[in-house]
């Protein structure tokens, strides 16, 4: 039994009134038409009259209904199901007695309330277990006190406390009122993973019914009586800003209440603050369509303040950076230069990728209501805490006077780590003196991005006369940050190794895009290793396993960033599951493996040619993320990552001319569609008892490499430059 120190300052369960909606945390049932989860989630259990709350995660009703608060933003990674499952496991309640509510931002209580870096489950694993175990222990103590026995004489399971050598039993709902006054234990016991009953079972998305019936869930759906709508216009190019505009004409248009310039710049901006467009034109009215017409009627004297960059310039900057750019980070083992000179075979290849936009399907939006005393913000954010801090700075208001609540989020992928749209909503609300919901058009969204940087990497490998890899180097540049992770594989596995990460400037705003840097580097590196294995005359999986073997038995140089046993483990698993090596006539296979965000993923793509088109018949995935909390939800994440990886490797790009993105909507910016997705994606998980890591990002990076390697087998062509097929051609599923 694992013991864990609790960290709560609250003394006890407290009784909270159901009349007030069930307590302080539930006081924000603000969505128009939002109904309680109870009917579909807890059939047969009546709604409680009294609720008892323990620690901000758990509220137990007198009927046995349990509310579990999900602390983190839900961007589609399904944490609103998996995080409460972890609490319910340790609390030991039947899952169908549980309803899930979104917790508000509460930095005093919850930790790590953000959605990024595939970290939600990994960082909160202990806190969620502790919350459940603490509740269970306090209910046991309440029953022990009531029956005048020791806690050791009782057991708790499935929401019922039973006397081990007696006849008495009581449900959590019945005993909850008696837990008021029981002190929070200093230490609680956690279950052994082998005793998990709920973790490791597939549970459906707790919001599934609401999603398929179109209930208001998203930021764009939020409605508050009396609120205005607003749209913004930013300068049409990076390197430009707002100037005078036809204000009187716009204000006179039907459906327009007001039009003005806002400024969202703040002192000492943080990493999630806007770097490009701080001055914007805001137009306010009552409905969306007239605002869209007003935006079209804007005539603005935009001011040029910086360089107006182009894709041609970006390519030149990357080439220059590779030649003589500023090295940000590097690693060097052995003597790569000497090793390349004496190598029997040397191969060098260059890989490129363009800027890409996140394109969450729900465009940026936020609700804000700023008054003299405070600011209320509601909407889709991956970083509520960063938003709160930046709004406080912009409004020059104490942080305590600001509240942030999170709606369900129509896609994140890193885009909503950035908080400018929340600040813009707050600035507009302050100006008009009332509540407002800001909505971006798709064009606003795609042209005011925090894009994935454009990258270029040169890989070089040297083989000796026995086809052993004796030298490996990578030099990678990016605007404005290089894509190389110097201590990742194959660091530690090659005698002579060099890695250099190089930066070059741009005024195009960039940021974290699903699996930052890995989303390019995995594809480049894994395509390159495929080519090196071919040059060595070795099977691509066996070639990689040889390298991991070296990293395990006789590691080269200082520390490296991966667990070679687990890395090799997913390759071995995908090899076995896919019957790799068994000839399959007409099927062309490519493999890749990558480790990022603490999770290991290997993928095999099976491709066939039909009517001259490459078709992805099946994708096999092997994943090691430690304990799998919700297996079918985990499969969904990996499947989505694979499809996303294929789509962005194949089709998507953002190009620039005179500082403006040429692609502003889905007519020119291509995203993967149904017919291009694989026909089947099967996912296998390594079974172990290691604390769980995340799945939001790791499924994507290897897909780009496995795809390129399968396409080579199918077509005889190596693909070095993303997007592999641009707008013209496609791979079918």
């Amino acid at each position, binding site marked *: 039994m694992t013991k864990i120190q609790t960290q709560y300052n609250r003394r006890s369960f407290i009784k909270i009134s159901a009349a007030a909606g069930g307590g302080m945390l539930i006081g924000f049932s603000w969505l128009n038409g939002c109904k309680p989860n109870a009917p579909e989630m807890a059939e047969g259990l009546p709604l409680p009259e009294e609720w008892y709350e323990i620690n901000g995660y758990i509220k137990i009703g007198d009927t046995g209904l349990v509310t579990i608060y999900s602390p983190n933003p839900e961007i589609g990674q399904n944490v609103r199901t998996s995080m409460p499952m972890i609490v319910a496991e340790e609390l030991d309640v039947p899952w169908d007695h549980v309803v899930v509510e979104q917790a508000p931002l509460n930095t005093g209580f919850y930790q790590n309330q953000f959605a990024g870096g595939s970290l939600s489950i990994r960082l909160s694993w202990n806190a969620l277990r502790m919350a459940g175990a603490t509740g269970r222990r306090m209910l046991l103590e309440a029953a022990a006190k009531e029956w005048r026995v020791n806690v050791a004489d009782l057991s708790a399971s499935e929401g019922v406390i039973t006397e081990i050598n007696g006849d008495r039993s009581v449900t959590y709902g019945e005993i909850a009122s008696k837990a008021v006054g029981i002190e929070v234990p200093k230490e609680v016991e956690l279950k052994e993973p082998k005793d998990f009953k709920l973790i490791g079972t597939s549970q459906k998305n707790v919001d599934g019914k609401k999603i398929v019936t179109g209930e208001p869930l998203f930021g764009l759906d939020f409605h508050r009586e009396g609120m205005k709508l607003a749209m913004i216009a930013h300068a049409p190019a990076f390197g430009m800003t707002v100037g005078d505009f036809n204000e009187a004409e716009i204000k006179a248009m039907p459906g327009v209440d007001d039009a003005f310039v806002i400024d969202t710049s703040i002192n000492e901006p943080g990493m999630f603050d806007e770097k490009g467009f701080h001055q914007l034109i805001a137009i306010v009215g009552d409905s969306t369509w007239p605002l869209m017409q007003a935006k079209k009627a804007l005539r603005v004297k935009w001011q040029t303040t910086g360089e107006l960059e182009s894709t041609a310039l970006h390519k030149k900057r990357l080439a220059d950076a590779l030649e003589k750019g500023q090295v940000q980070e590097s690693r060097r083992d052995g003597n790569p230069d000497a090793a390349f000179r004496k190598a029997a075979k040397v191969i060098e290849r260059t890989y490129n990728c363009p800027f890409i936009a996140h394109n969450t399907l729900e465009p940026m939006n936020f609700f804000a209501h700023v008054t003299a005393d405070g600011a209320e913000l509601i909407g889709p954010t991956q970083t509520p805490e960063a938003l709160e801090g930046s709004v406080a700075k912009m409004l020059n208001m104490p942080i305590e006077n600001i509240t942030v609540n999170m709606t369900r989020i129509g896609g994140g992928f890193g885009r909503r780590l950035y908080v400018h749209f929340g600040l813009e909503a707050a600035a507009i609300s302050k100006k008009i003196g009332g509540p407002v919901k800001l909505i971006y058009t798709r064009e606003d969204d795609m042209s005011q991005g925090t894009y994935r940087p454009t990258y270029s990497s040169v890989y070089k490998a040297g083989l000796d006369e026995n086809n052993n890899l004796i030298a490996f180097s990578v030099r990678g540049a990016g605007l404005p940050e290089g894509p190389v992770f110097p201590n990742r594989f194959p660091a530690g596995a090659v005698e002579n190794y060099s890695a250099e990460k190089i930066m070059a400037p741009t005024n195009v705003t960039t940021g974290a895009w699903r699996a930052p840097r890995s989303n390019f580097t995995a594809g480049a590196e894994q395509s390159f290793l495929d080519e090196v294995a071919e040059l060595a005359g070795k099977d691509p999986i066996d070639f990689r396993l040889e390298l991991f073997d070296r990293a395990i038995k006789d590691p080269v140089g200082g520390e490296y960033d991966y667990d070679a046993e687990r890395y090799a483990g997913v390759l071995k698993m995908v090899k076995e599951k896919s019957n790799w090596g068994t000839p399959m006539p007409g099927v062309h296979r490519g493999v890749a493996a990558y480790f990022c965000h603490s999770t290991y993923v290997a993928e095999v793509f099976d491709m066939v040619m039909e009517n001259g088109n490459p078709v992805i018949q099946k994708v096999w995935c092997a994943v090691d993320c430690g304990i799998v909390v919700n297996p079918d939800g985990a499969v969904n994440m990996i499947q*989505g990552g694979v499809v996303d990886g294929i789509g962005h490797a194949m089709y998507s790009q953002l190009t620039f001319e005179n500082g403006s993105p040429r692609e502003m909507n*889905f007519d020119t910016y291509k995203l993967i569609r149904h017919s291009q997705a694989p026909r089947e994606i099967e996912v296998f998980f390594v079974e172990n008892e290691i604390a769980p890591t995340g799945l939001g990002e790791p499924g994507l990076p290897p897909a780009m490499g496995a795809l390129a390697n399968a396409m080579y087998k199918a077509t005889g062509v190596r693909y070095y430059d993303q997007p592999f097929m641009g707008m013209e051609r496609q791979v079918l599923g």
Partner: protein
Amino acid sequence: MAKYSLKVNGKSVDVDVDPNTPMLWVLRDHLQLVGTKYGCGIAQCGSCTIHLGNAAVRSCQLPVAVVGSQEITTIEGLSEKGDHPVQQAWLEHDVPQCGYCQAGQIMSAAALLKNNPSPSDADIDAVMDGNICRCGTYVRIKQAIKTAAKTQSA
């Protein structure tokens, strides 16, 4: 501005809007039916798919003035209890990730099955290619459509 009497989800409703206003914004801003989503505004993503009679249409490109007396069905009116075979199949396959596109996907799939009760993979692709899922739930959507087709024909 002009007054229109519309039939939405079996009910008669009156709105007073600019004749060019797309049904998407009539539904969302004037009728508080926000299940129909805005994604691109140029009929490229399918998030705003509704039924006009029996046909799936992109409501962002459907001006209110051309609707006339035709029946409009939105995700909120697809079934009374959220139990249309397509909705049930979506739950069975636990399709959604972020969920934002799914109302549009479901409306496209429901129209497909009404017109073609047992579609082939190619039939599904041809119709569903108009609906983008940014999270990449395409494999599950296809499975769910096949399940719904079986349920409907049973």
